[in-house]
């Protein structure tokens, strides 16, 4: 038996889906995140002994006439895959809009149950809905649900009703007969009648108490939080607060404890191994696996705190306001209003972020967004940020905050350049986005989000990161003739000889050591590898060392091993964050760009940006701190100038193309 969940966006479908199936699907409501339908079996205690009840969560839609790709999925599924029962989730706080879609569903003949969700919010607002009357008017069962609540949420009744009405024929309260489906004006006329019908139903069943005060308080908050200029410093302060809690206070406190356990485990394994074991095996196990993976996992508590705080921000409705503030800049540089969505999703992971660009119709805007989204610091980049701000900047929260702002600045600058290269400007776009009401964030939801992201982090550490560390360790332990590298002759190892040529290129950026080059290279496999590889090549077991921090009273120890100045460290961090992303994200870019020229151009562009940003940071940072440019300024400048000229050449060609277009039209 198949039950389909359908309804308007943000009506709480996924929350209900999770409550019914016990899953933790965390896909937000941005269109394009839910690009595909999700299926899951009903939880045992709800199914009432029955098995084989499958629930399908569909992307949100406002009507059966598809407007976007993801809406089409919903329509096709209901029309062609014929679910046994449709549960139509209706936002009880917005009946007059939601019931439009309901009446369309009721016409299909498939039995429908209306789940009147968010009924708790209505109670708070003082709105009363006559469920009995609504059910009679719609000719289908109506059940009040509170998907966010654990008990008395109406879910059991929902499923048992679904079992009961299965196989019955749904009667339609409103039949929108269209004689000629190609006649637009006829369709519109029918839909108008449909809305009139909905209005008459709503006026009968709903008694509203107007609570304008609460709403105007929200509007007043919006006027400040989403203010065109004030919104930016507010966002900075919020991010600074997030990083200061996760990076400077609570995070390190928890991380200290956690790292103590990892160290103890390391020592325990070391004790068991004893002296008799071959040094190569010993090194793989201790330095490669436990040390390398441990160094990455050591950041887990810190990052979980960060995930938790970010989840709170999303849940209270703040992120939608950030989108409103940022949207303006993106539009100015020729991106779509929709581009903000992939970018915000990209703060979690670039892969779904790039995939979310699918909903952008214009090819240039979609490809540009796919190219620029990976600049956002994703979850995998957070340990790298945490490592460098911890080791070189005394856990200062401004490092993390700065990275987000640099990312946004690079996206804007990047879009500005690309729009010139393509010679396509002045595309008129319309943008509309529903603003959710502010609400008190749910600690439970944030905790669930944090735990599932923490789990994902551990899975990554235990698979990709672990394997990479083993390989790095082997390559470091042997030379090309497969002899074990002697102590003091590390430069002869396979790893050193591969990484050294790249290291030469990095000298103008302030970090020309082969170890750092190797870490940057493994970072393309997964960005956490930067941390893991640094741990392996420098034999550092953790970067949050409890005792050593206390003894030295600063992080000079680890910093000293790496031999980087603070400025060079910042340049290295920026290089890793703002160059080409990991392979998974590159794969997603290729899939969404659907064009080889764009794809390779995009990768080259990202490399150029990463190099240039690191160069500027290191050289000018060094100039400001010491009064002179850093090492190899001129060769680096030459490289940057060459890259810029190539970009300028293409931009010039694009401008010509635009000029030709303009004259053709005139």
């Amino acid at each position, binding site marked *: 038996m198949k039950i389909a969940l359908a309804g308007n966006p943000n009506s709480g479908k996924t929350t209900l889906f999770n409550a019914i199936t016990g899953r933790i699907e965390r896909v937000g409501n941005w269109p394009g995140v839910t690009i595909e339908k999700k299926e899951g079996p009903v939880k045992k205690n709800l199914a009432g002994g029955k098995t084989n009840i499958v629930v399908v969560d569909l992307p949100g839609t406002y009507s059966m006439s598809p407007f976007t790709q993801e809406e089409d999925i919903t329509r096709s599924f209901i029309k062609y895959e014929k679910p046994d029962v449709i549960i139509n989730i209706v936002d009880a706080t917005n009946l007059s809009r939601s019931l*439009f879609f309901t009446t369309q569903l009721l016409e299909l003949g498939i039995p429908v149950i209306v789940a009147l969700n968010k009924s708790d919010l209505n109670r708070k607002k003082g709105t009363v809905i006559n469920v009995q009357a609504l059910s009679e008017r719609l000719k289908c069962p109506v059940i009040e649900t509170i998907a966010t609540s654990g008990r008395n949420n109406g879910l059991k009744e929902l499923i048992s009703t679904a079992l009961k009405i299965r196989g019955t024929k749904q009667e339609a309260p409103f039949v929108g007969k269209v004689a000629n489906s190609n006649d637009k004006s006829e369709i519109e006329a029918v839909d108008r009648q449909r809305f009139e019908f909905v209005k008459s139903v709503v006026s009968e069943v709903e008694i509203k108490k107007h609570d304008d005060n609460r709403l105007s308080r929200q509007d007043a908050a*919006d006027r400040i939080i989403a203010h065109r200029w004030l919104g930016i410093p507010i966002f900075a302060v919020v991010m600074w607060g997030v990083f200061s809690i996760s990076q400077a206070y609570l995070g390190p406190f928890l991380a200290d404890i956690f790292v103590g356990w990892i160290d103890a485990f390391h020592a325990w394994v070391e004790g068991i191994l004893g002296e008799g074991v071959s040094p190569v095996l010993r090194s793989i196990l201790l330095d490669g696996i436990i040390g390398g993976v441990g160094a990455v996992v050591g950041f887990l508590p810190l990052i979980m705190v960060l995930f938790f705080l970010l989840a709170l921000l999303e849940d209270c409705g703040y992120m939608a306001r950030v989108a409103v503030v940022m*949207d*303006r800049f993106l539009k100015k540089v020729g991106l779509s209003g929709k581009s903000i969505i992939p970018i915000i999703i990209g703060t979690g992971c670039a892969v779904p972020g790039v995939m979310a660009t699918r909903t952008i119709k214009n090819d240039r805007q979609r490809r540009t967004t796919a190219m620029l989204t990976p600049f956002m610091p994703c979850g995998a980049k957070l340990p790298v940020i945490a490592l460098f701000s911890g080791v070189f900047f005394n856990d200062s929260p401004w490092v993390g905050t700065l990275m987000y702002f640099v990312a946004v600045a690079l996206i804007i600058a990047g879009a500005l350049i690309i729009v010139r290269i393509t010679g396509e400007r002045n595309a008129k776009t319309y943008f*509309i986005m529903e603003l959710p009401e502010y609400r008190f964030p749910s600690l439970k939801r944030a905790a669930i989000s944090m735990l599932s992201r923490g789990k994902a982090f551990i899975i990554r550490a235990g698979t990709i990161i672990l394997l990479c560390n083993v390989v790095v360790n082997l390559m470091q332990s042997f030379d090309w003739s497969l002899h074990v590298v002697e102590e003091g002759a590390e430069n002869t190892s396979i790893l050193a000889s591969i990484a050294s040529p790249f290291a030469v290129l990095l000298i103008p950026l302030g970090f020309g050591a082969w170890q750092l080059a190797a870490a940057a290279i493994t970072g393309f496999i997964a960005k956490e590898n930067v941390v893991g590889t640094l741990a392996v090549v420098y034999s550092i077991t953790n970067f949050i060392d409890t005792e050593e921090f206390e003894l030295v009273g600063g992080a000079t120890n680890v910093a000293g091993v790496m031999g980087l100045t603070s400025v060079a460290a910042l340049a290295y961090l920026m290089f890793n964050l703002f160059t080409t992303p990991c392979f998974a994200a590159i794969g997603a870019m290729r899939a969404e760009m659907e064009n080889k020229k764009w794809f390779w151009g995009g990768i080259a562009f990202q490399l150029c940006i990463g190099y240039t940003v690191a160069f500027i940071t290191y050289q000018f940072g060094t100039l400001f701190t010491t009064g002179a440019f850093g090492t190899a300024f001129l060769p680096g400048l030459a490289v940057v100038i060459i890259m810029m000229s190539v970009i300028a050449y293409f931009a010039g060609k694009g401008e010509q193309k635009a000029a030709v277009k303009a004259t053709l039209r005139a």
Partner: protein
Amino acid sequence: MNGTVSLKTIMPTKKRMGRYDGGTVNLTNAQANREYIIKDIKTDDLELKGFLFTLGCYEGEKVTLLSVLGDNYIITIKDAKYSIDRNLAEAILVSRSF
């Protein structure tokens, strides 16, 4: 309120352009916190029109401009709040409801 005042002073030409006979203006010229009736959606794009329709944004329906935040116009239609951009706000023609 501030939003509308500044709009008037900064863009007097826009205001004249947006005016229609019989007090019909586009949403960029609407006053905040006052209910308007939608008169027309001025666009050639039938898809856009159809989508707005499903939100309940079509002739004869009510719309309220809550505030202007830079280039974004915060409006309510039925019981939902939306942020729309200037292009869209210019396409929605409204008149005062009495």
